[in-house]
C-alpha cells in the first residue's frame, strides 16, 4: 500500500506571506510530516520570503520542533516538579535502557524515539509518561518496562 505524501504546497498556500505565520506554519508542517526536513524548511522559507537560516534560527529555538523523523512510537517523559520528586529520573533511565536510546534520539530500527518534556500539567498522576499522545500516570520503572515490551 502506498500512502500519498501530503502536499506541502497545499499547506503553504493556506498561509499568507507575513512573518507571523512562520511558527503556525512550521507547526502544521511538522504535524503532517512528523518532523521538519531540510526541504520543508526551505519551502517554508521561500513561501515567507525569508532565508532558510532565518527559519532554522527560529525553529531550533523552540523545543517542539524536530529535525529527524521520530520513531513509530514517540515516548515523552515528564520532568515536571511533581514527577521529579516522585522519581521521574529513574523512569527516564529505565525507558532509556529498555529502548537503547537517549533522550532526543530515535532507535536505529525506527521503533522508538524518546523526549523529555518540562511538564504535562497532570501533576496529580506523577510520574507521568506519554506514549503516542496517550498519558500514562503513576508510573514505576517496572510499569514502564511492560509498556515498552507491549509496544515492541
Amino acid at each position, binding site marked *: 500500500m502506498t500512502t500519498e505524501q501530503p502536499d506541502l504546497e497545499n499547506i503553504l498556500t493556506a498561509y499568507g506571506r507575513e512573518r507571523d505565520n512562520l511558527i503556525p506554519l512550521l507547526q502544521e508542517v511538522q504535524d503532517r510530516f512528523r518532523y521538519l526536513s531540510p526541504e520543508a524548511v526551505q519551502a517554508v522559507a521561500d513561501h515567507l520570503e525569508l532565508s532558510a537560516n532565518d527559519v532554522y534560527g527560529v525553529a531550533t529555538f523552540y523545543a517542539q520542533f524536530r529535525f529527524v523523523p521520530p520513531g513509530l512510537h514517540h515516548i515523552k517523559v515528564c520532568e515536571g516538579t*511533581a514527577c521529579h520528586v516522585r522519581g521521574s529520573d529513574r523512569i527516564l533511565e529505565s525507558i532509556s535502557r529498555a529502548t537503547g536510546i537517549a533522550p532526543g534520539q530515535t532507535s536505529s530500527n525506527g521503533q522508538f524515539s524518546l523526549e523529555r518534556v*518540562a*511538564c504535562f500539567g497532570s501533576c496529580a498522576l506523577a510520574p507521568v509518561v506519554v506514549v503516542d499522545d496517550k498519558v500514562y500516570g503513576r508510573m514505576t*520503572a517496572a510499569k514502564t518496562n511492560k509498556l515498552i515490551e507491549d509496544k515492541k
Partner: protein
Amino acid sequence: MSFAARQQQAQIVWQRFEQPDRPRILIGSATCGRAAGSLEVMAAFAAELAKQGLTESVDVVEVGCLGMCYAEVLVEIRGRDGKRVLYQSVEPRHVEALVDAQLVRGEVFAPLALAVMNDTDETVPAFTDLPMIQPQVRIVLRNCGIIDPTNIDHYLAQGGYSGMARAFSLGPEQVIEEMKASGLRGRGGAGFPTGVKWGFARSSVADQKYVICNADEGDPGAYMDRSVLEGDPHSVIEGLIIAGYAIGAGRGYMYIRAEYPLAVERVKKAIEQAYECGLLGKNILGTDFSFDIDIRLGAGAFVCGEETALIASIEGKRGTPRPRPPYPSVSGLWGKPTAINNVETLANVPYIILEGGDKFALIGTEKSKGTKVFALTGKVRNSGLVEVPMGITLREIVFDIGGGMLGDKPIKAVQTGGPSGGVIPVDQLDTPVDYENLQKLGSIMGSGGMIVMDESDCIVDIAKFYLGFCVEESCGKCAPCRIGGYQMLNLLNGIAEGAGSLEDLDKLRRVALAMQRASLCALGQTAANPVMSTLRYFEQEYREHIVNRKCRSHKCRSLMTYSIIQDKCKRCRVCVINCPVNAIEGDREKGFFIDVSKCVKCGKCFEVCKFQAIAKE
C-alpha cells in the same frame, strides 16, 4: 436573536440538563481524568446502558475537573430520585455495579461514594462539607466540573457573557475603575494590578491595540490554567473580550502551550461558538465594538511566558525578551499598545464586572484581593487544584484541604512559585499566603504551583532541579542568565556529588546576586531564588553534603549506596532478576550481595523487594 432571548434559550437547555428526574452521568474528563482512564469508563457506561436498554433515558456528559485529581476518575450519577452522588476512583469494572445500584435499584453504591452533591445522606457527606472543598472559595473554578465545557448554553445559563454585557453598559473607563476597585493582581506571577495595566494601555494612543491571553503555562508543577481552559473556556474568552473593550483593542490572541492539546481543542470550539452567537466578531451585541480572537500555539519555550518574549514569538521570531521600558502597554505586539493577562486573571474578570469590584475586594488580605488557585502536589494525600481566599495559611492548605502528608511522614517544606520561587520551611507554615508574605519568606506567589516535600526530598536536589530547568530554558540572550546559571549549576552538581567545598556556598551567593541584578528578564532575575531560599533555610543540609559527604534523604546518588539486609532477605531472587546491570550476586545458600562497583543506583531492587530488605545508606 437578542442577547436576552439567547440567554432564555440557554436557560431552557440548562433546565433540561438539571431536570431532577432525568438520570444523568457526568464524567470528569480533563487531561488528568483522561489519563486516569475517564474515556474507558465512559465507554463502559455507554456499553452498560445499552445492555440495560437505558441509552435513551440517561444522559452521559463529559465535564471538566472538580480539582480532586487524587480521586480520578470522578463520576457523578443522578438517579431517578434526583439525588446526585459523586463517586471516586471509578474503573470500568465498577460500572455495572454503579448502574445497577443507582439507576436500576435507586441506591447509593457505597464502596465508591465520595459525596452527595445536592442533598444530605446519613452515609455519605455533602460535597460542600468535604474537608477538601469546605475551605475553598470558587470564583475562577466556579463552573469547572459543573458544566459541559463544550456547550455555550451551559456557560450562558450560569450568567456567562453577562459580565461582558454589563461592561458595554458601563463604558471602558468605568470597567477599568471596577478592575482597580477589585484590587485584582496578575495571577501569572508578578502580581501587577490588572486595572492599572489596562489603564496604561487605554491611555496609549494608537490606531490599533491588542490584548493577549498568556496561556503558556510553562511552570513545572502548575496546571491551573490548563484546567480552566479545559473546564470553562468561555470564562477566559469573556475576560479577554472585556479586556479588549476596556483598552480599545480590536484583536486578541490566546497563546496556549502546544503541550495542552485538549485545552486547545476546547478553546477553539468555544471561540467558534462565541462567533456563532454574535459574542465575537463585528458589532458585538449591537454595539460599535468589534473584536476577533486568534489562537497561537506555544512551541515549547518556557521563556515565552515572559511578556516581551511572548510577543516576539507571536511575531514569528525567536522568543527572546527585550529590555523594558517601553512596556507592552505602550509598545507591544508590532509596536502597538498591548495588554497581556494570564488565564486565571482573565477568568476572574467576568465575575468582577458582574458582581462589582468592591464585592471581589471583600475577599483576601489588605494588598492581595480575591482568591488564588493552587496546584497542590508532591507528598500530600489529596493532590489537586484548590481555590482558596488569599490570606489562608499554608498549614490549612496542606493539612485541611490537602488531607495531610502521604503516609503520614513529617513535612519538610513547601515549594511555591516554581523555578522562580523558593521553599518555605515547616516553621513558617502558619504564614498567611499573599504576595507580600511569600516574598518576605524568599519565595513568590508565582503562578500557583505548590509542591509539598517530606524528609525523603533532598534540598540540594530540589535546588539543582529548578536551576537545571532555568539553565535549559534560558534563551541565552544575556550573559548573567546564560553564564551565571550554568556556573551555579556546576557548583550544585559538585556539591551533590560530594565534591563541593564550603567556599562554594559563598560563590553561589555571589553569582546569584549578579544574576538577580543584571539579568534582562524575570527568568534570569529569579532563577537563583530556589537556590537562595534553600540556602537560607537549609544551609545545614548543604554543609552535610560538603563536609560529611552525606545526603540525609538518600537522593544524591554519588552519596548513597544500596545494600541487602541479610536478616530480612528471603532470597527470592526478585531483585536479581530485575537488576538491569546484573549487579546482584550470590546464591540462595550464601545469600545475595550488591556489587557497588556495578550498581547504577537505579533503585529497581528497592522498588521490587516485597520484604523491605534493600537498604539505602
